[in-house]
């Protein structure tokens, strides 16, 4: 039977004192995930990969897997399972949006902001906002372009909302699915340290679309140069977020495949922007005097030829 003395609470010595007594004992220290305590790594590191660790956050990945295992324990047919995907506060959503608009060179968006808490709130509502923003801005832009013409009758163009919704939601969900499948397949061939879950990829894509919302509003300005500058600018910002996220995942692979993957990601992103600009926003019309064609009854008609709706 345990004596009463053994059951009393004991004060433990300071860690330094204990370590001085037994220098060979294993120690565990819990740090901020951003720091990399170099003495914790079990394997040797080449000096060139130190900067990449900030992108990978390999010290973080062990803890994130533990955390991931604790979180989603509810079966998928209960409501609580889906509540785990909405476990974000206002300031977290705002931080993630800020991180997607101002990419810090060298920091991985997933490791820095998502940290094994991917949410579906951001992707869903950013896509919804983008759908309505593009439809409304396109409508307004066409209205202003055709404003002075006597033959113009304003139409609300409501069908374009459903087209925009299909396009944007397909992009935000099917491309991450394809990318995730592709990364899983390459992971089985090449040992990668970094692998993202499907929801993290959806999260990155959803938040990277945020920059297009103010871009779509600014596309109302009926100047071709302005529109293309905006396309390039927003493509650079959100494309860089995507590249910095996915480059560590494919870097260890065959050089060509890695470059092709990252190139495809950027290309599809650019295609979305250009496609939206082309379809929803009519080109600002250029009035150039066409050759004067004599009409049948002798009067002279001057024809202005509008540019066909392409960018």
């Amino acid at each position, binding site marked *: 039977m345990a004596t009463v003395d053994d059951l009393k609470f004991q004060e433990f010595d300071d860690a330094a004192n204990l370590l001085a007594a037994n220098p060979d004992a294993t120690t565990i220290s819990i740090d901020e995930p951003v720091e990399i305590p170099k003495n914790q790594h079990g394997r040797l590191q080449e000096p060139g990969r130190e900067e990449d660790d900030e992108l990978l956050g390999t010290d973080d990945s062990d803890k994130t897997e533990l955390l991931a295992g604790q979180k989603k324990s509810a079966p998928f047919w209960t*409501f609580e399972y*889906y*509540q785990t*995907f*909405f476990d*974000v*506060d*206002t*300031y977290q*959503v705002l931080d993630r949006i800020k991180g997607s608009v101002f990419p810090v060179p060298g920091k991985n968006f997933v490791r820095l902001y998502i940290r094994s808490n991917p949410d579906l*709130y951001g992707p869903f*509502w950013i896509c*919804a*906002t983008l759908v*309505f923003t593009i439809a*409304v801005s396109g*409508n307004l832009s066409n209205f202003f372009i055709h404003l002075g013409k006597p033959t113009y*009758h*304003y*139409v*609300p*163009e*409501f*069908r374009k909302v459903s087209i925009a919704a299909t396009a944007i939601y397909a992009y935000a969900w099917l491309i991450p699915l394809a990318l995730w499948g592709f990364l899983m397949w390459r992971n089985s061939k090449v040992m990668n340290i970094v692998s993202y879950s499907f929801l993290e990829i959806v999260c990155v894509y959803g938040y990277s679309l945020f920059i297009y919302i103010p871009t779509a509003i600014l596309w109302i300005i009926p100047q071709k140069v302005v529109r293309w500058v905006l396309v390039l600018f927003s493509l650079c910002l959100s494309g860089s977020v995507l590249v910095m996220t996915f480059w560590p995942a494919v870097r260890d692979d065959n050089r060509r495949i890695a470059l092709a993957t990252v190139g495809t990601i950027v290309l599809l992103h650019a295609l979305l922007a250009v496609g939206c600009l082309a379809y929803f926003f009519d080109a600002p019309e250029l009035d150039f005097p066409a050759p004067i064609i004599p009409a049948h009854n002798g009067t002279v008609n001057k024809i202005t030829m509008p540019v066909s709706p392409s960018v």
Partner: protein
Amino acid sequence: MAAAEGSGGAGGPLFAGLADVSISEDIPVEGEITVPVGSRSPDEDFSTLDEPVRDTIMRDLKAVGKKFVHVMYPKKSSALLRDWDLWGPLVLCVSLALMLQGGSADSKDDGGPQFAEVFVIIWFGAVVITLNSKLLGGTISFFQSLCVLGYCVLPLTVAMLVCRLVLLAGSGTVSFVIRLIVVVAMFGWSTLASTAFLADSQPPNRKALVVYPIFLFYFVISWMILTFTPQ
């Protein structure tokens, strides 16, 4: 156990004599079991089957009317939340969709929203917002949230009515400015009314996450009202 034996054997003051009681099997035990009720239960003299139909309808109409008044003057009363009903939202949604009908259907695809589209947008939007608030940890029930969001469409329905009347008078710049002011004011009223009712049921650090979709929902409806052009 030792203490219980002690009191039984000594014949404590509470249960004296009970140990000796036994009921003979020859004597039938009979009697009435009634629950003494202080007053008559309200169900006995309030059967809705016997009342005239007019009373039944008027009771529901009065409840709907009271909720309309609560929306127009959103004080912090909980009548909207406690007794939810979906009659008001249905009436508002149908009338709004009917009034948005027939908006410039000259070309095949470029017209305004059709009846079914308005209906689906309002109900599907309300369901999505309710699911969103419940997933974020809100304590409001599903139908209560639908009820509040539906009733708060009332200012926008009034705005639609005003817009149609203004468009009867003319469709120039002045009428557009009037319509813009009316729609913006009613949009603000709708959003503030529904936020006043719904924001309290959310965790405090997620209020903005819940209010933003409501803002987007009423913005879309306001846009449909503002861009309505009669054929």
